[in-house]
């Protein structure tokens, strides 16, 4: 099958426009991060006149970036793993059983996606304060509070996607395994989970990226030493100077690990989406 001229023109125009749109901000980010502050405060230049790596040293001193990095890493990793475990159980239940309340559960869980964050931000904060007063478990200003919040945020989408994925795995397989005497949990562990690996990877990536980029609740639920990167990055501009070169360097440092991880796993991600969400 040959491409027509029209198809070729469409393809070239689309790819050129979208490449420029994607690349320009990335280029600005990278080049600005290696410019001295004086150059950044003058008119913009596409090609840096002077090159320095100093912003990459200063970012760690202007703001306690390493601390924020560690906080984000702990919060997002724990939230991702715990939510994955909870979502696997819930999705297994929804996918393999027909029970009273099943429809109500899935509808409620999905409708939470509609909730505006601003509506339950303050109530959540107040509930956390009350839990602290009643039980002594600190949830405001600690990583624990943020972990619980984030893992719940990603649960609905994770359950929905995993349930779709599990539905695609023939029931006969885990029935057979159950008859062999492994029980329902054995079937989940030996049959369903191995077959659902791309779905698990996809959901894990989604959860981690969502938590890593969250701003609103991080700004209210954390204080000083427990703040995450989302908050830390804003502190480069609250000083007398706006250190744009450091902001860009820090943005890059914060982005590179997650972008690399995502690109390495993108095949699994797309495969997981195809089987789970899209049916």
């Amino acid at each position, binding site marked *: *099958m040959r*491409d*027509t001229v029209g*198809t070729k023109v*469409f393809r070239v125009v689309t790819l050129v426009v979208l490449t420029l*749109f*994607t690349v320009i*901000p990335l280029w*600005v*980010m990278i080049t600005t991060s290696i410019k001295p502050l004086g150059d*950044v405060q*003058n*008119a*913009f230049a*596409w090609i840096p006149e002077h090159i320095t790596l100093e912003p990459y040293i200063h970012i760690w001193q202007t703001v306690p970036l390493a601390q924020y990095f560690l906080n984000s890493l702990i919060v997002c990793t724990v939230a991702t793993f715990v939510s994955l475990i909870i979502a696997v*159980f*819930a999705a297994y239940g*929804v996918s393999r059983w027909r*029970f009273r309340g*099943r429809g109500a559960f899935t509808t409620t869980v999905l409708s*939470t996606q*509609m*909730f*505006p*964050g*601003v*509506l*339950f931000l*303050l*109530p*959540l904060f107040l509930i956390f304060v009350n839990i602290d007063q009643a039980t002594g478990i600190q949830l405001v200003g600690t990583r624990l509070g943020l972990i*619980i919040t984030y*893992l*719940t*945020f990603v*649960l609905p989408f994770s359950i929905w996607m995993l349930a779709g994925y599990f539905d*695609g795995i*023939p029931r006969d*397989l885990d*029935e057979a395994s*159950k*008859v062999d005497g492994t029980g*329902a949990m054995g079937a989940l562990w030996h049959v369903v989970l191995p*077959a*659902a690996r791309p779905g698990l990877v996809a959901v894990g990536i989604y959860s981690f990226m969502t938590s890593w*980029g969250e*701003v*609103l609740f991080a700004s209210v639920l954390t204080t000083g030493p427990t703040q995450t*990167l989302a908050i830390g*990055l*804003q502190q480069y501009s609250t000083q007398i100077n706006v250190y*744009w070169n450091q*902001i860009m360097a820090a943005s890059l440092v914060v*982005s590179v690990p997650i972008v690399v991880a*995502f*690109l390495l796993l*993108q095949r699994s991600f*797309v495969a997981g*989406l195809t089987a789970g969400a*899209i049916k």
Partner: protein
Amino acid sequence: MSATTVPPQPDSSTVTKRVTSRGSKNGQHRRLGGWWLPYALLAPAILFELLIHIVPMATGVWVSFIKLTQIYLRNWGAAPFVGLGNYSVSLDFNSAIGKSLLNSFLVTCGFTVLVVGISWGLGMAAAVALQRAFRGRGLFRTLFLIPYAIPIYAGIITWKFMFQKDTGAVNHLLFDNLGLPGDKPFWLIGDNAFLAIVIVAIWRLWPFAFLMLMAGLQSVPQDVYEASAVDGAKPLRQWSSITLPMLRPVNVVLVLVMFLWTFNDFNTPFVLFGSTAQPPAGDLISFHIYNASFLTWNFGTGAAMSVLLLLFLLVVTSAYLLFVNRRSKRA
């Protein structure tokens, strides 16, 4: 898809028969280990959803009926009940509060239509352009996914720098490189703020549309196109009569999800404008409510506005699903 990774079981039908015949009326429950098992599996998820989503949500609705100001914050049980008072304040379009809420709502509607529409268009164009294999396809695919993978605030903060009046890349490109006449404008102050926020939101969102549509296109068999080409179908016609119908299940979910995310978008205005300056042209509704509650310390009105927002989203979503379901039934 996953079925291909597991060898088919030749005796699966006999196994199922054997299992079901063992139980009586509720045999399905028995063979899977007791009626309580699914509830036990769901329990942790229900617990967290209750704690973080449902209870705070219900509390938020209750707050919308009380006069929760700074005075009552420490002892909010004592805050006076005002009934629908917070709602009538929010919806009084002659007052400053109601007028700015209405403005914010209209801005958000325009923003959502533009961002979702254009993001979908760009995602579709890219997915179709990369549908057929060619050298370098993987490179474009990877490149286009980068804005989606970059943490939200890192991407937005880069655009914030680009939109600076004197030191930014956007004005440099338009006025120094392309030679537009006139003075360099502000982008993050005044009416241009709307354009700025739309562009940034599209930059973030379109790769997601691309990702979903690309994943969806993988299930469209290539030989359908070849057969239709033999019949003389032009590319545009192939797109409208093969690609689009095949992608319908994807689009139904994709458009809804993008609508909800975009309408509730808080990050883009928060990072782009900061919490002190909010140009009315970029005053998205979530950001507006956040400022209305935390800057004025009147949480009752803020909660009432949020409930109104939720009701609006509920009505639109229900209407959308009703419309979609009716159409698929007819089809």
